[in-house]
């Protein structure tokens, strides 16, 4: 919560903004990973649960699913970047009116 500390140097020479950015990155990757686990589980794992092990078909499916999910992430990211300005507008619409100081 660096914003509660103003610009005073943190104890022990810790740059709070740097920490905050690293935490945001960590949380983003974790969220992404969790969604990948969940999506690929829905796509590849049979819900009969007759045995505790991944069978051959499920294993191969998982490998392809991870690769495809990563490709989709890249494609969507490129799209969002190319839309740049439009996205910024969407962000403002989303918080429309109620966050202007």
């Amino acid at each position, binding site marked *: 919560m660096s*914003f*509660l500390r103003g610009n005073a140097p943190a104890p022990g020479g810790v740059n709070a903004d740097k920490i*905050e950015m690293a935490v*945001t990155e960590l949380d*983003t990757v974790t*969220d*992404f990973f969790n*969604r990948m686990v*969940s*999506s690929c589980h*829905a*796509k*590849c794992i049979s819900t009969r649960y007759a045995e505790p092990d991944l069978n051959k078909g499920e294993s*191969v*499916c998982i*490998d*392809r*699913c991870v*690769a*495809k*999910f990563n*490709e*989709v*992430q890249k*494609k*969507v*990211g490129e*799209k*969002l970047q190319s*839309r740049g300005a*439009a*996205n910024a*507008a*969407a*962000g*403002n*619409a*989303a*918080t*429309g*009116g*109620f*966050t202007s*100081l």
Partner: protein
Amino acid sequence: MDFSNFNGAEQAHMTKIIEKRQMQDFLRMYSNLVEKCFNTCCNDFTSKALSTKEETCIMNCTEKFIKHSERVGARFAEQNAEAMNAQNQ
């Protein structure tokens, strides 16, 4: 929201928090889009590469979701403005 009773230091704090939230909202929308469009568009796992059909679907899904969010945001802002006007009369 109404920040008219916030002093300068408090407004500065809120601005920082809002900026942080906007970045988090953007990242959340990004991963949300990836998940939603992947789940809808990708159903063939006989190959690890995206097919042309899947890729077109992903692009349309992304574009359409953004336009959808913008439209919802615009209508939502209008309704809030109306509600606010009604309150002030």
